[in-house]
């Protein structure tokens, strides 16, 4: 049984449709990340799960029980806000114990549970402080502590680290993973940072325009995206995309011409392409493109070069103006380099139709 079931959920604000037909099954103990560009509805979905927004249609179930109408405090969810939303007039201990106090727990019980959560988060020495006297990272830990104290079935985090500096963010990320391992609780985490998503998620939900684009394990999404949006959103630098015309289709191969406007032919292994398709978008990751000798590969005009030490990215453009990033191990390239040649690994191409949907091989799949 899924811990959290989201079935055909939609959300409209007035006449504006913000979420369309969301279906997700989240298993107990999973670390799920919602990721997508700003305004795609991540926060709205999270707020619907916890009950801060009503569900326009569809059903949300937690441990099998429908919670659409359940009071937010009774759903067994706890939320950590981006702004922390700590009560500034209460001490850290009072902040963490507030929900228990509202639930009418005994003072000793509250103190014990707060102390336990504080120990997990290394907040023991800060219990008497006010939020105003804490650093950003400490505030974030208190906000998480406030959630832990409630012992929820599902933790919800809405961009909890985005107010922290890069270094602290990496540290807090590690702490969150550690916490997840310890508590074995279901966690849902919202971010628009795909690196954060990849590092944290057991499975991630890529959203765009109120629609779930793909739901799966991070590397599956990386290797096997369902559409151009996911392909472009995940991975940094982004996947290269170029248009091409289909010249010939055989049962096992597709021959395309003028990839990215270059005067070239590529023969791609691909089973069972629909022969009516004339136009394709080809996707290939920078690590599957390498620098080649003149005469080999496609000509590329070099725009700029990023030398990161361990790896060098050459950002160039194809004759039709499409961007092409080449990943290279070569350090200290000739600085006057203005053109180069790129060899693309034909086996690594992903094919997309003109709507950006992924074309998958059909017929007998390779073993």
């Amino acid at each position, binding site marked *: 049984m899924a811990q959290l079931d989201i079935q055909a959920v939609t959300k409209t604000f007035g006449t504006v449709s913000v979420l369309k037909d969301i279906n997700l099954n989240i298993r107990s103990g999973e670390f799920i990340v919602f990721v997508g560009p700003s305004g795609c509805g991540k926060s709205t979905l999270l707020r619907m799960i916890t009950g801060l927004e009503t569900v326009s249609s569809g059903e949300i179930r937690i441990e099998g029980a429908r919670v659409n109408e359940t009071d937010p405090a009774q759903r067994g969810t706890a939320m950590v806000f981006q702004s922390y939303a700590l*009560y500034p007039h209460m001490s850290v201990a009072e902040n963490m114990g507030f929900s228990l106090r509202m639930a009418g727990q005994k003072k000793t019980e509250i103190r014990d549970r707060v102390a336990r959560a504080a120990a997990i988060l290394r907040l023991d020495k800060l219990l008497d402080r006010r939020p105003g006297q804490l650093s950003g990272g400490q505030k974030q830990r208190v906000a998480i502590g*406030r959630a832990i104290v409630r012992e929820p079935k599902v933790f919800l985090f809405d961009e909890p680290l985005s107010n922290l500096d890069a270094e602290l963010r990496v540290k807090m990320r590690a702490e969150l993973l550690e916490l997840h391992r310890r508590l074995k609780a279901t966690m849902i985490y919202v971010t628009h940072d795909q690196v954060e998503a990849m590092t944290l998620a057991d499975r991630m939900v890529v959203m765009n325009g109120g629609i779930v684009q793909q739901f799966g394990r991070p590397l599956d999404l990386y290797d096997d995206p369902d559409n151009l949006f996911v392909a472009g959103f995940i991975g940094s630098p982004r996947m290269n995309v170029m248009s091409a015309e289909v010249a010939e289709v055989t049962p096992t191969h597709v021959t395309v011409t003028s990839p990215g406007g270059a005067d070239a032919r590529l023969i791609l292994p691909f089973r069972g392409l629909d022969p009516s398709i004339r136009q394709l978008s080809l996707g290939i990751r920078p690590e599957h493109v390498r620098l080649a000798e003149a005469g080999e590969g496609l000509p590329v005009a070099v725009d700029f070069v990023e030398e990161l030490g361990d790896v060098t990215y050459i950002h160039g453009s194809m004759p039709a103006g499409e961007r092409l990033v080449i990943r290279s191990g070569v350090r200290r390239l000739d600085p006057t380099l203005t053109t180069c040649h790129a060899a693309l690994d034909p086996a690594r191409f992903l094919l997309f139709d003109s709507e950006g949907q992924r074309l998958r091989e059909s017929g007998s799949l390779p073993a």
Partner: protein
Amino acid sequence: MTAASESASGHRWAVADLWTWAVLKWVVAICIAIVAVFPIWWMVNVVFAEPGAPVSINPRLYPTSFSAGWDKIMMILTETQYLRAYYISVTYALLTILGVLLFGSMAAFEFALFDFPGKGLLFGVVMLSLMVPTAVTIIPTYLLVADLGWLNTMQGLVVPGLASAFGLFMLVQFMRSIPAEMIEAARLDGASHFQIYWHVALPLSKNALVTLAILTFMKTWGNFTWPLIVAPSPETYTVGQVVGLFNAPFSHQTVDVVMTANLLAAVPPLIFFLIFQRKIVEGIAMQGSKG
């Protein structure tokens, strides 16, 4: 002259400027303080003066007899209804403060942090009432209070002043700055609507509430007209009314006794002011920037 000594002399100049500026500021401030304090000081000197000193000795720069002043004070407190008037005035002020804070904060909580049908219209009506001068509403309010049979009663004094449009406005402005996420967090923590008000919104508005309490105190303590018309019977005289009797053109009290009555009326606000000095200044500044 070298560049270094030049810049040093420039520096000295700046210091001298600062000095003049500081001295000037102090002189001006002291002058204003003297002008402000002098009438009160004069009042004190008249009260604590040898009995029989002619009123025409002007100005009086220092007190001459403590015991004579004390006698006058005791005389007023024992032989007139002054103590009862104190009691009435203090009760009137405290009840009004309590009511204004309670109703103002509850209404502000809803207006500032939640949506409900008709909110804009209702708030508009309340704000409109801010524009209407008291002189216009005082007669209808009086008639209403009279109809209720509340003339010469404490509720007649207090109840009409409980809903303060100004207080509501001020608290709404203040509570709007409470982040929505904090209210949501409280909701998720299981706080009921009232508990959110009580445990989150109220404590966070403490500064505004204190300010409003002070402003309300000053207003009710100094309110002369309303008690005069709604509670004209001597049993419900406020301090203001009693002092009014002393000050009346045909009162046959001597000047020093009148001054004593006035001084006694000024003592509570003075004490209040000394305690809350900083808050009052902040409050007035807030009125200016927000109102």
